[in-house]
């Protein structure tokens, strides 16, 4: 839910599954490789005791069960770990994030933030953590080079996600979200697309499209995330007070390499959700006749000329639909938006205006344009056709997250793709939590009491307190408690764990 004023502020975060490959050892499974990556980071960065902290999957189970779940693997060679160890590799980091293996991919769930800029920074930090993790794993004797890709498809039928989460007011009817947010998600591909050479889930038609993800959406609304993917996902697991909040889990987005694309993706979505909560889009009818087909058609048209058919027969381009949302947002926030909101409105307008002229002028800020420019450059220089393997490699290698190999990262290095954060800011976000949410408390506890945290989740921490017979579970159900403003001065006093927990329970009382 928006926090006080009309603007972009709300609890939000991004979780990203990375593509993974081991070119020199095709026999290594994706799950094994993912486990090696996660464990390599944990072993290098987190003291051995830290690794006892496990995800608190079953907060309702007797706490004693959490004991004994721990096994120190600090001394184990990664190659000696069993598949089971690798598939359950899972660490909570000092920045409040979760780094783990989600089936066949390493995943980084960034800590909860309250502004799009902060959430973008933490998504970036996640990419840098993944890059380092893969490097650490690959340096281990006996382990081959493991490569990670921030993309969403192998072009052979598989897709994996970059999901956004937005906390919303429970009072907002979900039908209104479906009615008013669907057209936004379908048309925002003009700036969220990371570009893809290949059409259809298996990429058999070698033509360029805006989005990595679009072709994998098959239904309008539903619960699934891995099959028959819906444009609006109904998963309702708020990790907050369910009476007050819903967590909207948005699964349509591409994983962006461009910070600017991520920033605009988060900021514009938060504004539109704020308007839906506020009821100010009520009279707008932006319903699409056939959202799933339009999702594909918008993505398949890099000229951005495609006319979407709205209910009632009206035709509008994706940019025109986005302009309606932007105009409503400008009116909604009023004459004095806060700086974070102003930044998003300006960026949104800049992108729509520029795309409406010559889309290629967005090459410095949008992934699909940056990628298309590279592909067109190669095609022209070498006289290639779209089915050239070199072009397919450029499509893939654009998303390689290594600084020296990834093409997006090379574009950044040369100043051709804008960066929003300094190296220092990103490095700090790799280690320190955002101060604006409960991620602050989680991350600080992981840093200060690594030996005492036996389990953690978004909405709980479980401590093994010295001298206590039973474990102590601290619920963190409110994402806006446990912030620096809330517990910073307490933590700054370097309390023992016992003193901290006593102070917190007094606070609760």
């Amino acid at each position, binding site marked *: 839910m928006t926090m006080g004023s009309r603007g972009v502020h709300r609890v939000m975060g991004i979780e990203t*599954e990375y593509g*993974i*490959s081991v*070119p020199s050892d095709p026999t290594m499974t994706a799950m094994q490789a993912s486990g090696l990556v996660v464990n390599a980071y944990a072993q290098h960065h987190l003291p051995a005791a830290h690794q006892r902290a496990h995800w608190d999957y079953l907060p309702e189970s007797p706490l004693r069960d959490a004991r004994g779940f721990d096994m120190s693997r600090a001394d184990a060679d990664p190659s000696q770990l069993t598949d089971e160890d690798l598939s359950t590799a899972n660490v909570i980091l000092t920045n409040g994030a979760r780094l783990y293996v*989600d*089936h*066949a*991919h390493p995943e980084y769930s960034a800590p909860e933030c309250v502004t799009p800029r902060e959430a973008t920074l933490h998504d970036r930090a996640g990419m840098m953590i993944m890059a380092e993790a893969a490097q650490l794993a690959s340096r281990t004797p006996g382990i081959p080079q493991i490569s990670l*890709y921030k993309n969403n*498809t192998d*072009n*052979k*039928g*598989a*897709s*994996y996600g970059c*999901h956004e989460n937005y906390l919303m007011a429970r009072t907002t009817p979900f039908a209104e979200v479906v009615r008013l947010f669907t057209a936004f998600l379908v048309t925002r591909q003009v700036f969220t697309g990371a570009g893809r050479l290949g059409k259809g889930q298996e990429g058999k038609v070698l033509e360029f499209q805006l989005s990595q993800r679009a072709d994998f959406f098959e239904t309008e609304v539903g619960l699934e*995330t*891995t099959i028959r993917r819906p444009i609006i996902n109904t998963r309702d697991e708020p990790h907050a007070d369910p009476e007050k909040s819903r967590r909207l889990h948005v699964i349509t987005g591409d994983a962006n390499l461009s910070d*600017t694309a991520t920033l605009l993706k988060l900021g514009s979505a938060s504004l539109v959700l704020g308007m839906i909560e506020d009821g100010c889009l009520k009279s707008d009818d932006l319903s699409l006749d056939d959202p799933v087909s339009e999702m594909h058609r918008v993505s398949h048209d890099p000229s951005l000329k495609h006319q979407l058919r709205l209910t009632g027969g009206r035709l509008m381009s994706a940019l025109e639909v986005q302009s309606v949302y*932007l*105009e409503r947002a*400008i*009116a909604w*926030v*009023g*004459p*004095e*938006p806060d*700086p974070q909101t*102003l*930044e998003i409105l*300006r*960026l949104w*307008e*800049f*992108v729509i205006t520029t795309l409406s002229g010559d889309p290629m*002028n967005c*090459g*410095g*800020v949008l992934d699909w344009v940056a990628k298309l420019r*590279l592909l067109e*450059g*190669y095609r022209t*220089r070498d006289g290639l056709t779209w089915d050239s393997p*070199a072009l397919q*490699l*450029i499509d*893939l*290698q654009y998303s390689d997250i290594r600084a*020296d*190999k990834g*093409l997006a990262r*090379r*574009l950044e290095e*040369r*100043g*051709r*793709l*804008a960066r929003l954060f300094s190296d220092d800011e990103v490095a700090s976000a790799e280690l320190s939590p955002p101060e604006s949410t409960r991620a602050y408390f989680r991350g600080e506890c992981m840093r200060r009491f690594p030996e005492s945290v036996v389990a953690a989740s978004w909405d709980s921490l479980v401590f093994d307190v010295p001298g206590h017979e039973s474990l102590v579970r601290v619920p963190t159900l409110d994402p806006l408690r446990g912030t620096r403003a809330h517990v910073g001065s307490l933590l700054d006093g370097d309390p023992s764990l016992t003193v901290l927990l006593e102070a917190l329970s007094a606070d609760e009382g």
Partner: protein
Amino acid sequence: MPQQQHSSGSSRDNRDDDSAVPASAAPHVSVSGVDDLLDEIDSLLEDNAEAFVKSFVQKGGQ
């Protein structure tokens, strides 16, 4: 960088910052051709593009 944080106004027409390029959108970004860049990329691309692309097979995720 925007010189100051202006109000965005209540409609696009009366905004006084229409010409302002967002801080994040354009500065430092070259819009010239990509030729010199392509030369660099030539040296970075994985060997044997066809085999490399073919071997990139993922399991589905979320």
